């Protein structure tokens, strides 16, 4: 447990704050929906209600992360957001296909939902059309992924944030700001085992000390790609869930924890971890947690 010398920024979106010194704000969780197969909206509704309830109970903020795989899913997913999520609750949208990204931005703008949206994500594969669409329909917050195909170390991740490793004209942070996004969350790009997967965790304190920006990652991806774990089905889920602990322990601010089905385990786990960090951070560094922190909610 530690404290950063660099001033740490805290960004707020629809009532949820992300960032700051370890121990002050709870770790924010992103739970993924619709990553596999056809979307099941009844199931999604059930899971969203569960995370809202657990979040209320523990103080750990949880944001649903909607994966949009096909154009025809855009409208029903927007309807789900409007009907099921509270009017002041943020959400994030994860799309790979550039054309679907653009259409989703347009539709969210029409529905006046961009102020609650976290764009997942800006990376060096950004197209000219995507940049223009983001300038026209600017989301409140965006994840900027520090994936550098040339260098997967923490230094390489900083290089891509600074100058895009010269793969595109502008550094990713400058690009996001040029688009008009000030609330930037840095994603340290967790890669497969064998591809310097540990660098995503080691980069957390390095990048926070470098920029003071909220930083996290989807360490769950490393577990998912650890195929050898398929031979240990009982352990796999535990490893998947527990991997998220490394993020707050290394000073990170948020965890994209994978399938929302794991929320019932991940939320209390991270609440527990945050309490541990907060107790020390307050006693030693004098960093007190906010009123909604799990330590205040759960330790009476």
């Amino acid at each position, binding site marked *: 447990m530690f404290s950063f*010398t660099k001033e740490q920024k805290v960004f707020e979106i629809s009532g949820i704050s992300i960032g700051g010194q370890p121990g002050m704000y709870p770790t924010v969780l992103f739970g993924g929906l619709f990553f596999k197969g056809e979307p099941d909206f009844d199931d999604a509704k059930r899971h969203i209600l569960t995370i809202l309830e657990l979040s209320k109970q523990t103080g750990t903020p949880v944001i649903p992360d909607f994966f949009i795989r096909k154009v025809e899913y855009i409208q029903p997913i927007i309807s789900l957001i409007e009907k099921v999520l509270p009017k002041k609750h943020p959400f994030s949208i994860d799309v790979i296909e550039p054309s679907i990204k653009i259409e989703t931005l347009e539709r969210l703008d029409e529905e006046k939902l961009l102020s609650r949206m976290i764009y997942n994500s800006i990376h060096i594969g950004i197209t000219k059309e995507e940049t223009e669409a983001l300038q026209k329909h600017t989301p409140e917050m965006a994840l900027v992924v520090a994936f550098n195909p040339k260098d997967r170390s*923490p*230094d390489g991740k900083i290089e891509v944030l600074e100058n895009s490793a010269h793969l595109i004209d502008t550094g990713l942070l400058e690009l996001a700001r040029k688009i008009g996004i000030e609330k930037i969350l840095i994603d340290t790009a967790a890669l497969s085992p064998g591809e310097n997967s540990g660098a995503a965790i080691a980069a957390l*304190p390095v990048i926070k*000390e470098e920029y003071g920006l909220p930083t996290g990652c989807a360490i769950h991806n490393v577990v998912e790609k650890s195929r050898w774990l398929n031979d240990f089905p009982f352990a796999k889920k535990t490893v998947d869930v527990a991997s998220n602990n490394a993020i707050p322990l290394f000073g990170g601010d948020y965890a994209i924890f994978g399938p929302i089905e794991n929320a019932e385990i991940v939320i209390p786990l991270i609440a527990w971890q945050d309490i541990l960090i907060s107790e020390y951070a307050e006693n030693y560094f004098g960093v007190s947690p906010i009123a909604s922190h799990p330590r205040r909610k759960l330790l009476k």
Partner: protein
Amino acid sequence: MIEDYYPWGGEFTACSPKGCVAVVLLNIQYNPPESVAIYGRLKTENIGIEKIIANTISNPYIRFLILCGDDIRGHRSGASLLALHKNGIDHNHRIIEAPGAIPYIENLKEEAIKRFQAQLNVVDLIGEKEKEKIDEIIADCARKEPSSFGEPYIAIRIKPEATVSLTDKRALHSRIIFDYLGNVKKRGE
């Protein structure tokens, strides 16, 4: 030893070491026949493609690379691999005319890519998911009985060695230090 033929390792199935066909599985549930040299899934348009190159040019008996199944959404890894074979990479190491999101080849020398282009005939079956049809094409390739391309080309070899090389600078990372009070500071400040 499998490691001798495929030095990068990875998630693939090695079958007949002297088979002339390698099969790249995109979005498809299919197990190629045991007569092929190697098969495995391709997910990403950068590291995934690099592994395929390294693990095919290392076995000179492999002369055909068959891509089958629907392409990977967004990544367009299959089409990016075709583009690499056809066009190579530009000065920025980007695959020329690749449709994928981040199609960069960073861990292989240009020589390895040239070897890949020369050694392998790529068979584009992207979109094809019928087992019988793919089996037939594999059999067609095998019937041609192409000769070996010569010496293996070892682009990358992962050597499992236990070594320790620690310096104070690398306590966590050379950019930051933790002082004894637990404060994180940028080095040199």
